[in-house]
């Protein structure tokens, strides 16, 4: 019964979508159309309908209503309530419904908060946004309906993939989606503004908020994904250049470029076309991400279903949107009134341009690394795996100049600045950085060729961003974000260079030496939990001064039957002690991996700082 409610409300939302598209499409030609109150109330009804259907699905999950096929496939009565709820979006159908939910809610917020802007621009944004909503509704209703009925009703469900039963991962999809879907508003509004000829300072200051919101959510979403990978996957790393991670990084890089461009557009009234191109690209990348992970073309934990018809649908929809935006861009390009005054070479404009250049380079490296294997397989029937060495080789050399420009860029003035007044403090900080890095590299015997310049510049950036806090200009949000970024690079570097790893097969009672520490496998105990059985190992790590007890866990889930390993991590401000063990099929031997990971916690903190800077910027009227 309740299933039908969800289903019908989606159909009502679809009807509204068709109606709104046909109404608003009039404004494509006529320039004087007013957004009647009717349409506004229709949009509200549409959002309410989608909210109802989403709540219905949550209800079905909470009450374990196995007459619903989605619930049957992804839930189980013994699952804790929290994971029953998060199970709602822990599957293909539900996650699409979540995507739709965010789409409609964002559109609603947009219509409310854009009241003072030109009617034509609003109507057109509505039009494009409704096309996206329409596409997703069709996709949900006809290829992946979350409200399919099952008869006869099964007694028990098949359970949620245990690896997804983790608090960080429960909120990871909604947060990431807020970021992804935010880019859809940017996309629609860029297209609307180009048609209505209003790509200008005021458009920039309006859309800036949406860019910031998407950017903040995307950053936090990626962070949560990394934290989950670190704790749950048991590899002891936080970033693997896995295609699925890349797919979320690409829109982030593009959005970061857009963020800087939009600020410049708002301040200096330049880069009009470029801002539009970036807006379109960002959303296309978000959609491609959805396509790549959901279609099964890339194999990963995120691939819920391998139904080819779904892949074909998203692919066609994605390319329709891309073609639509390319045509609109070329057709209406003349409406963009580009400010043709060339910026001076030494100016903040140039610095922003450089930032964009680097972002585009990083983006293309990640894009090629992700897509090339797919293309190669189709065209040449060859399989390759592109791993971290590819990314490191291509990215690190360019990171060095990037860090340098990031350090000096924000201190350059708008319009025109002089190269002559080389700053004394900057030079002295640079010299200090060289000295510090030289001793560091020497002490730890880092052998990599580029490590010295990399250290020098990341320390340089770090000091400069700290120094900037004492500067007179008040752009505090930028300072926090840039400081966060320098901290991120520095922590990643230190983490990479100073990490130590030990791995061995041990059984209870064994002792191993590692560096100056002794690792002892003390005991193992078995505990029965609500929906899994848990093997908890107790390890003791001792050095001269202190001893540390770590209790990694192996969980054997019943529904579906899977083994996951939970690392035990003890974090301090300076380093993480990471221990994970795995069952080997014999004689009570376990494979034990112990890692010392310095500055791990600072990686998380720095990303939080970066996002926090964005949040503050959102608060302020004038950046």
């Amino acid at each position: 019964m309740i299933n039908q409610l969800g289903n019908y409300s989606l159909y009502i939302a679809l009807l509204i979508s068709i109606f709104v598209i046909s109404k608003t499409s009039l404004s494509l030609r006529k320039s004087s159309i007013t957004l009647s109150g009717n349409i506004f109330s229709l949009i509200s009804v549409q959002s309410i309908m989608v909210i109802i259907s989403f709540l219905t699905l949550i209800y079905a999950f909470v009450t374990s209503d196995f007459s619903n096929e989605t619930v049957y496939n992804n839930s189980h009565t013994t699952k804790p309530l929290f994971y029953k709820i998060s199970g709602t979006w822990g599957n293909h159908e539900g996650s699409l419904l979540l995507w739709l939910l965010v789409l409609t809610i964002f559109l609603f917020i947009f219509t409310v908060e854009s009241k003072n802007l030109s009617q034509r621009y609003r109507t057109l944004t509505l039009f494009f946004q409704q096309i996206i909503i329409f596409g997703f509704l069709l996709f949900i209703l006809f290829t992946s309906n979350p409200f399919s009925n099952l008869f006869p009703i099964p007694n028990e469900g098949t359970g949620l993939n245990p690896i997804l039963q983790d608090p960080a991962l429960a909120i990871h999809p909604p947060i990431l989606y807020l970021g992804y879907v935010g880019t859809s508003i940017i996309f629609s509004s860029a297209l609307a503004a180009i048609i209505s000829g209003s790509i200008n300072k005021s458009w920039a200051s309006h859309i800036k908020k949406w860019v910031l919101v998407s950017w903040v959510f995307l950053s936090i979403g990626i962070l949560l994904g990394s934290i989950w990978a670190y704790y749950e996957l048991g590899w002891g790393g936080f970033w693997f250049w896995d295609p699925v991670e890349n797919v979320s990084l690409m829109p982030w890089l593009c959005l970061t470029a857009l963020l800087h461009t939009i600020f410049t557009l708002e301040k200096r009234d330049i880069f009009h076309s470029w801002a539009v191109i970036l807006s379109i690209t960002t959303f296309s990348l978000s959609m491609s991400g959805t396509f790549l992970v959901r279609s099964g073309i890339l194999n990963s934990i995120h691939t819920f279903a391998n139904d080819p018809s779904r892949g074909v649908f998203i692919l066609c929809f994605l390319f329709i949107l891309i073609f639509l935006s390319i045509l609109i861009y070329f057709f209406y390009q003349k409406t963009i009134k580009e400010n043709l005054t060339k910026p001076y070479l030494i100016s903040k404009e140039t610095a922003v341009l450089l930032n964009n250049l680097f972002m585009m380079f990083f983006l293309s490296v990640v894009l090629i690394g992700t897509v090339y294997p797919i293309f190669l397989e189709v065209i040449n029937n060859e399989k390759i795996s592109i791993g971290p060495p590819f990314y490191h080789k291509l990215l690190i050399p360019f990171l060095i100049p990037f860090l340098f420009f990031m350090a000096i860029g924000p201190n350059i003035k708008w319009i025109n600045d002089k190269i002559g007044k080389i700053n004394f403090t900057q030079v002295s900080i640079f010299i200090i950085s060289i000295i510090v890095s030289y001793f560091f590299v020497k002490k730890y015997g880092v052998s990599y060729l580029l490590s010295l310049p990399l250290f020098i510049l990341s320390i340089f950036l770090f000091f400069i961003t700290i120094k900037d806090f004492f500067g007179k200009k008040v752009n505090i949000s930028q300072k926090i974000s840039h400081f966060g970024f320098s901290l991120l690079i520095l922590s990643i570097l230190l983490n990479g260079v100073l990490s130590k790893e030990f791995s061995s097969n041990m059984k209870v009672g064994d002792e191993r030496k590692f560096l100056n520490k002794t690792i002892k496998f003390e005991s193992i105990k078995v505990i029965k939990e609500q929906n899994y059985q848990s093997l908890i190992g107790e390890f003791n790590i001792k050095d001269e001064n202190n001893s540390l007890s770590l209790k990694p866990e192996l969980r054997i889930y019943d529904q579906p039957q899977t083994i996951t390993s939970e690392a035990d991590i003890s974090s301090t401000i300076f380093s993480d002690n990471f221990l994970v063990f795995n069952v080997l099929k014999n004689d009570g031997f376990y494979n034990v991996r112990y890692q010392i990971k310095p500055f791990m916690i600072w990686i998380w903190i720095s990303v939080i700082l970066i996002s926090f800077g964005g949040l503050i910027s959102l608060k302020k009227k004038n950046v």
Partner: protein
Amino acid sequence: MSKNIKLTSIVLIVLFSFFVLLKGLDKSNTYSPELSTTKIDFNFKAKDLFSDEEIFLDDLIKNDGMSLINIWASWCLPCRDEHAYLLNLKSLYKLNIVGINYKDSEINAKKFLKELGNPYTNIITDPKGINSIELGAFGVPETFLIDNNSKLIIKKFIGPLDDSTFNQLTKLIK
């Protein structure tokens, strides 16, 4: 004019990617290890990782019984995961395991073995990856179980070994 050229070239690139991705959807991404009876030429020379001598792969898989050929690299994360299984196969079943070190640097490969243990009877290097590809490998890691007498591939494991493939393997060896 130049605008039209831009537009056409962009449209063409986009269309091209569309068709490639569309075709990519048909390709199955989950490989089921198949029983392959094709005879493969193991008669090639390659450098031994430790002794630097040129040896024939053929000579490494002669006696009776079975051998395992494992293609690995120190830069490949899944290889790290499957390494414990290989160590087990070696210590419990005394299986002859031949490693092919795929597109790797010697220093890193040795470091990897020093750190995780060496399950291999012999390791030959394949710095350009050509030999591995000729054996029919897609990438790393990949593991072939071979009958030494007939030189037939009994089973191919594409991707890292895990509990279930390990069980399959142990059943096949007995």
